[in-house]
């Protein structure tokens, strides 16, 4: 789950990581007042779950309370469209107002999980404030990766290696090491999957400050972090995705017009691939999951056809844990409840595929049957 910048900074602060003096507001006037408290100048940042917010006009340096209130007023309640959002954008419901920072250097620092090494990895670069993917692509030698062994845990010698890579002196290196140790503690105690500080600012007086930060939690660990529910901002999610999520369905809205219902994430992606290969375009990724019930299948089907851009539906199920007869029953019951005006192509195989086919046939639903994935794609294209 993604966190807002202000939520991430609250967590960092509670673990002793220095962040700029700042506060989050939902009211433009209060935001303006706080600009005064900060001495008349501040940076105001839209709190949204999307990168590219600066270029999209979601961040502004203001020089007085009125400017602050005006800018806050202009974005609060609006939708921000960035390169990472769809054309509909994401709602700006709060702004973070922060003191200006006297920047001497901008560095990059993040900690995330490396599946290959099966451990946390510290990623550092002197190229702070940039798109780190581009730095990695163009100048990989400017990026350092250091793994944190799960047996030893974080040890200061790793921080000294990072400090040396970033050409820091002894004193700054000690501060950096303490900062990294605090980040690791935050990760371990909160089951975070990513903490990214970009830029990590070296201030004019040599101090370190997490000027901007991205943070994500590992949703698998939600069961032991009950307070995470309070941190979720469902409004930042696509409405259909949110509904799906609440029903235990993995759904991602896409740009095309072929609605897809598949069991299993891998097969769902493969189904999208095969649709693209015949010149069509998927309207969504949808995985009903292995433990799907008839009701869940019905909900998934309704969700797909509720998307106005969907012109065709492809149901591709390889019965395993989820039996084909359960899928068929779910589809039939949903079909009866709602108006469906788009053609349906069904490919079912595996566990109870024959029973499923019979249920669909006898229901009278006008579904085109395909016998394998290639054939299904072909029928979608027709």
């Amino acid at each position, binding site marked *: 789950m993604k966190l807002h910048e202000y939520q991430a900074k609250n967590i960092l602060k509670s673990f002793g990581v220095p962040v700029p003096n700042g506060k989050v507001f939902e009211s433009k006037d209060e935001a303006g007042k706080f600009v005064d408290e900060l001495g008349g100048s501040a940076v105001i940042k839209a709190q949204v779950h999307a990168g590219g917010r600066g270029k999209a006009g979601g961040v502004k340096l203001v020089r007085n309370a009125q400017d602050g209130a005006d800018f806050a007023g202009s974005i609060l309640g609006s939708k921000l469209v960035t390169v990472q959002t769809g054309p509909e954008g994401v709602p700006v419901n709060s702004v973070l107002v922060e003191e200006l920072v006297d920047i001497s250097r901008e560095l990059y620092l993040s900690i995330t999980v490396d*599946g290959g090494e099966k451990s946390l990895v510290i990623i550092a670069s002197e190229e702070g404030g940039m798109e780190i993917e581009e730095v990695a692509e163009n100048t990989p030698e400017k990026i350092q990766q250091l793994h944190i062994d799960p047996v030893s845990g974080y040890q200061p010698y790793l921080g000294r290696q990072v400090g040396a890579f970033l050409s820091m002196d002894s004193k700054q290196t000690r501060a950096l090491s303490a900062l990294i140790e605090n980040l690791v503690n935050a990760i371990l105690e909160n*089951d975070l999957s990513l903490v990214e500080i970009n830029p990590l600012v070296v201030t004019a007086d040599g101090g370190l400050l997490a000027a901007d930060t991205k943070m994500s939690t590992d949703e698998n*660990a939600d069961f032991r972090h009950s307070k995470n529910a309070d941190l979720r901002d469902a409004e930042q999610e696509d409405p259909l995705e949110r509904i799906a999520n609440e029903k235990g369905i993995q759904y991602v809205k896409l740009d095309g017009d072929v609605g897809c219902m598949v069991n299993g994430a891998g097969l769902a992606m*493969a189904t999208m691939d095969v649709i693209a290969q015949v010149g069509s375009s998927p309207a969504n990724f949808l995985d009903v999951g292995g433990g799907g019930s008839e009701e869940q299948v019905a909900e998934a089907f309704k969700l797909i056809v509720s998307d106005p851009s969907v012109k065709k539906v492809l149901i591709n199920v390889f019965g395993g844990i989820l039996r084909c007869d359960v899928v068929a029953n779910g589809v039939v019951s949903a079909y009866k409840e709602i108006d469906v005006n788009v053609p349906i192509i069904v490919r079912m195989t595996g566990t109870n595929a024959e029973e499923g086919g019979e249920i669909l046939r006898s229901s009278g639903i006008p579904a085109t049957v395909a016998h394998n*994935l290639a054939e299904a794609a072909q029928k979608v294209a027709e």
Partner: protein
Amino acid sequence: MSILVDTNTRVLVQGMTGKEGGFQTERCIDFGTNVVAGVTPGRGGTTHLDRPVYDSVKQAVNEQGANVSLIFVPAAFATDAIFEAADGGVDLIVCITDGIPTLDMSKISAYLAKKNVRMIGPNCPGLTSVADKAKVGIIPGNIHKPGSVGVVSRSGTLTYEAVGQLSALGIGQSTCVGVGGDPIIGMRHKDILELFEEDDQTESVVLIGEIGGTAEQEAAEYIKEHMTKPVTAFIAGATAPPGRRMGHAGAIITGSAATAESKKQALLDAGCHISDSPGDIGITVQKMLG
């Protein structure tokens, strides 16, 4: 000989008395798998599916000689179950459970290495040794045909798809392994390839990858350096938009190495036969086998 499991394998099932665990265990038994015990704390001394149930893995290992544990317990209890299995004396753990916290898996991996215990999963369909009649997982038994193609994949149903295509063309399988889609898993593609390379029964391999992570590049490197048997590969997710989560936590595009294109290229460079469409996996293998 198949890899990892065979007719000599003695399987205990952690969570056998649960609904899902019981259902799947029955399918394993039907396939011919030698399931020797269930383990459910508090249910020791009872019987389920005609198998004795024990309170602990240690007891099941001591009394039934179990050497593989198949885990179905819910995510909140699965970490404990895996540690118990590793400490309890089995050689291989197959964990079907999804939803295990990533940091738990990091700790588990270090412990498994220390104990010299292998693990498939979590969040995986498990594995089936087709000819040697050992299904330790949830891959539907009836889609298989015995033969000499090894299959390794991250995901569940896409594995079934590949296996289904092979069987439909009369191409049989040796062992089929779904390694799971989580960020941190036990054995990875490369580890399974190493076993296939050494396995007499396996003559060629189908590798199914996905966007995200670098497991396929790792596999490509191994194939290039060490693999003598032909490999057919398919990578799912070419059309997935960058930065969006596609169900599997593993299926996040995390940089150019994680794209389908980069993975395909690495596998092509390693000499693999590439199936460009998920509908053509079987046919590509058929062509490869000549």
